[in-house]
């Protein structure tokens, strides 16, 4: 995806004299003073067409005077260009952009939670992931990854069984702080002021919430007057981990973010790192990546279909969808050696060559799957109950797509053809043919149809990849092992001294990345998964920001459910399809 062109940059510079424009290798950055931020953003949104909010985050530079730098990433859907706006916080304060983009509210809450930056003008600046009363701001550079141990928590298993010698458990007795139920109650009270009859807690441990999202509904009878979403019940500190390990070591962690589409995550991450390191990927690897990413997309949509239908009472679809999922899982397991969190990709290629017979199995799957899809359509598409539950529920307008930074099938369901695979092709997406299905109304039913059609398109892509891979010789390289930052495959390591030394060096010292910054994203089943990497050189990123599609897609939920009923919340949530591992990270 191109970045802001020079003509536009000059126009902006003409309007705003004190804006500094910086063209880096991978991005275009506008530096602006904190006081002028809102004006500039307003100008970019209204005059220049940068109306799609992609992401906001901060970077902590403890040695500089202002310390925190705010980063905003915007997208212009007319010219297909992105831009990064940067500004320094003043005395730990930034202005809130929630009047311009509604989803900025959530991004700002997160930055407040993680960095302690105060946003002036925010309607309810609360902690996003941690609980009220948690005293630290974890993403600050002076906070340790493993936290600050302060409470004694012994292993109860050991307490019951008695301590043996040597001990059966090896653990640190002192543990980081765990909230009490009162803390959680305070968190809940801080989020929502009761206006109507009663506040209903939905989740966090409720099967319908797709994980551990905690919803608060202020109800008047069955009508939802207002609602809020509390996240953080799966906040594992991914971004902090990324700052503390080497680039290649973080790859398995991306699997565990959106665990339903592991390979798509890996692909987005590997693409970003390869951009930073300047690694070319061989043709075969690109096709293998594309093929598996699309298999994973089908896999993910099947899970959405199964659980979404299950939530609305259709148990059969769940069992059917999982039957097909098992087939895909087997294909993935046969190649990567793992079913779910596969870690199949590597920086510079893929871990293994295609296993014997993979293409035959995939061909059989391609042949069989359209019939299965027909089964699902028969069960649901014209089903009267299904139509009643999904038609005209949760309608998202086109403006809201931009306002809330929606991406993926949720954006496409409202008729916005935003698909990174077309707009900024990565892997082999520019060499295969496929269409982008879009909806018309933007209700739950449209999003359902879009996802169903996406599976058909994925099949098309896989078919082309199989045809291509059959033509490529078996000896074609599947990883770019000539590059100094790419690890050699195992079969070379044991045979060749040079490869062994190289791998040894990378494992011990990490890849040596040049200083610079990259924002690169991939089209995940749950929307745009972006990685913003800020490197100051060396083998670890200085800051790695994960732009989660699921988080932004979820941010429209409180608006959509307003004046709806509780029953609609379930259908609506299913259609937004968040995965908590990615929203909370």
């Amino acid at each position, binding site marked *: 995806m191109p970045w802001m062109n020079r003509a536009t940059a000059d126009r902006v510079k003409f309007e705003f004299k004190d804006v500094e424009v910086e063209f880096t290798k991978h991005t275009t950055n506008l530096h602006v003073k904190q006081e002028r931020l809102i004006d500039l953003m307003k100008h970019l949104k209204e005059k220049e067409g940068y109306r799609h909010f992609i992401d906001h985050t901060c970077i902590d530079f403890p040695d500089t005077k202002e310390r925190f730098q705010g980063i905003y990433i915007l997208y212009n859907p007319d010219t297909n260009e992105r831009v990064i706006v940067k500004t320094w916080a003043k005395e730990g304060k930034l202005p809130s952009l929630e009047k311009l983009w509604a989803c900025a509210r959530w991004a700002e809450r997160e930055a407040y939670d993680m960095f302690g930056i105060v946003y002036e003008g925010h309607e309810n600046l609360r902690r996003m992931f941690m609980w009220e009363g948690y005293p630290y701001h974890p993403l600050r550079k002076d*906070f340790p990854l493993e936290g*600050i141990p302060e409470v004694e*928590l012994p292993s109860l298993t050991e307490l019951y069984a008695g301590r043996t010698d040597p001990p059966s458990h090896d653990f640190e007795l002192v543990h980081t702080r765990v909230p009490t139920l009162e803390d959680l109650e305070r968190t809940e009270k801080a989020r929502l002021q009761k206006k109507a009859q009663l506040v209903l807690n939905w989740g966090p441990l409720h099967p319908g919430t797709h994980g551990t999202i905690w919803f608060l509904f202020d109800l008047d009878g069955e009508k939802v007057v207002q609602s809020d979403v509390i996240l953080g019940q*799966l906040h*594992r500190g991914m971004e902090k981990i990324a700052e503390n390990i080497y680039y290649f070591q973080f790859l398995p962690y991306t699997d565990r973010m959106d665990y339903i589409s592991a390979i798509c995550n890996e692909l987005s991450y590997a693409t970003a790192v390869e951009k930073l390191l300047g690694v070319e990927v061989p043709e075969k690897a690109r096709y293998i990546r594309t093929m598996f990413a699309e298999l994973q997309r089908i896999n993910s949509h099947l899970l959405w279909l199964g659980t979404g239908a299950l939530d609305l009472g259709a148990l059969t679809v769940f069992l059917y969808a999982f039957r097909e999922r098992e087939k895909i899982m087997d294909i993935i397991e046969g190649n990567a050696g793992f079913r779910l969190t596969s870690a199949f990709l590597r920086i510079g290629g893929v871990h293994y060559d295609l296993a014997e017979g993979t293409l035959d199995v995939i061909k059989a799957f391609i042949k069989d799957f359209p019939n299965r899809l027909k089964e699902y359509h028969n069960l649901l598409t014209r089903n009267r109950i299904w139509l009643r539950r999904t038609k005209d529920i949760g309608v998202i307008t086109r403006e809201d797509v931009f306002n809330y930074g929606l991406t993926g099938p949720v954006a496409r369901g409202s008729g916005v053809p935003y698909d990174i695979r077309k707009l900024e092709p990565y892997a082999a997406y520019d060499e295969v043919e496929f269409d982008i299905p879009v909806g018309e109304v933007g209700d739950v039913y449209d999003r359902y149809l879009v996802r169903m059609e996406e599976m058909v398109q994925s099949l098309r892509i896989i078919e082309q990849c199989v045809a291509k891979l059959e033509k490529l010789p078996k000896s074609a390289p599947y990883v770019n092992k000539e590059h100094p930052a790419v690890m050699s495959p195992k079969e070379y390591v044991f045979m060749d001294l040079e490869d062994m030394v190289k791998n040894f060096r990378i494992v011990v010292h990490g890849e040596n990345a040049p200083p610079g910054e990259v924002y690169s994203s991939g089209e995940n089943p749950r929307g745009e998964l972006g990685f913003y990497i800020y490197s100051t050189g060396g083998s670890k990123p200085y800051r790695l920001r994960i732009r989660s599609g699921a988080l932004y897609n979820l941010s429209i939920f409180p608006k959509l459910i307003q004046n709806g009923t509780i029953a609609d919340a379930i259908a609506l949530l299913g259609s937004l399809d968040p995965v908590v591992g990615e929203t909370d990270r």
Partner: protein
Amino acid sequence: MAMLNSNGFVLTTVDELLSWGRRNALWPLTIGLACCAIEMMHAAASRFDLDRLGVIFRASPRQADLLIVAGTVVNKVAPMLKLLWEQMPDPKWCITMGGCASAGGPFPTYSTLQGMDRIIPVDVYIPGCPPHPQGLLYGILQLQKKIKEKGVKKYDKAFEEFKKDMEKQGLIAREITV
């Protein structure tokens, strides 16, 4: 110990009968926390079909006697899980599925609970990240074995009380030898 005598009767102790019933009808609570939960769903779905073992997921802690902790337990969710555990009636068991729930797994971070056993006692730990559904099946079989060998008295305060009551009323079951 159950045995068959010459008249075709099966003779057993009440304890043994109860334990047999319990271990073959473990009803877990429907809770998924993270990636491992997907594998748990797979274990329950078409291919691996947990129902065969009498394992049927229940949505209410009041009806459940097994807590399968599938996924990363972060500090914030720990007190809620503990609450659910306390809401489950005795006798009850706990299986931790995956590295995260067992010991923090790949997340030695500020926000993650380093092992479920810090807040509730655990009976079976299943390693893996995530464990294969077969791993979960194996874990459940292990738990059945454990119940068979150790009985149900371990965390069973209510049952103890009940027994004491029975003793007081002179209704305690005696070993019957054949």
